[in-house]
């Protein structure tokens, strides 16, 4: 009997380790952001729609917002645009856009043609702000809380599922504890 105990124990241990590994393994190709739970990177960039004004992260403190990285060169961004318009219509929280390494005129054309879901769009021509946010492929969307802390990150086109399962519950549970 006891001669089976050791192999059985080793097998059980291996099974547990592998089970934990499978449970914790992120979706293939999705890399967890080290920014979650950390203060959102600061930025001050020209506005896309009004080049004379500046979009500042400091001005965004005090309320929830979604930070959406996009570009007209990005096909998935077109796919998620309808969802972004839906987010704007819901009026739960503002969308702040980051137009990443794009052509300004084309980006403005995109917004007039498809509709503008953003409260403000910051223009990142050099790609420095995107790097500060750890962006590696558009579209990416970050949820930032009133204290300016990144709470959640979604990589790829924003979907209705992500909106209802990941974003809304976080915002509303915070609102519930406050009241």
């Amino acid at each position, binding site marked *: 009997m006891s001669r089976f105990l050791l192999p059985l124990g080793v097998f059980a241990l291996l099974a547990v380790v592998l089970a934990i590994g499978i449970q914790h393994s992120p979706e293939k190709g999705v*890399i967890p952001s080290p920014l979650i739970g950390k203060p959102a990177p600061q930025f001050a960039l020209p506005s896309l729609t009004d080049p004379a004004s500046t979009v500042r992260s400091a001005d965004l403190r005090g309320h929830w917002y979604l930070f959406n990285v996009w570009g007209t060169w990005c096909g998935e961004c077109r796919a998620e645009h309808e969802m972004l318009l839906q987010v704007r219509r819901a009026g739960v929280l503002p969308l702040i856009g980051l137009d990443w390494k794009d052509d300004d005129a084309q980006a403005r054309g995109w917004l007039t043609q498809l509709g503008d879901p953003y409260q403000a769009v910051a223009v990142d021509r050099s*790609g420095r702000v995107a790097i500060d946010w750890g962006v590696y492929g558009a579209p990416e969307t970050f949820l930032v809380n009133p204290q300016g802390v990144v709470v959640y990150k979604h990589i790829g086109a924003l979907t209705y599922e992500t909106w209802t399962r990941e974003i809304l519950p976080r915002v509303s549970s915070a609102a519930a504890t406050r009241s």
Partner: protein
Amino acid sequence: MRHPALTWMVAAGVALVAAARVLAVDPTQLPDPALQARYVALTHELRCMQCQNESLADSPVDLAADLRRQVRELLLAGKSDDEVRAWMAARYGDFILFRPRYSLRNAWLWGAPPVLLLIGALVCWRVVRRRMTLLAADQDPVEEDART
């Protein structure tokens, strides 16, 4: 050169090397050779996040060029190699480092192989010991003959 074929081969070789120089993904040349060496080493051990199995040095995509620019600027600003690695990892996570860092979370990964080796050695030693006592207790004359 006497051999025309040899001449052609040498010419082709020279052309290939020249082409490789021109087509190199990263033409960066920093003023200080020591800095340049550190730059080359660092860009080879940082991952291009967009094409994940290539290093920053080998990747032709836009983001890799932007990240190489950051490495360059950080080095020129006098940052150490570890500071550059930490700067990258703070934004993109440990995944950007091809050479993993030691941390509490992955400590068991580093510790497991020596521990497993130790367990293996222990099992081996016990088996050998048991066989030796079996051999010593064995009084069968036939076996005795076979051994001598």
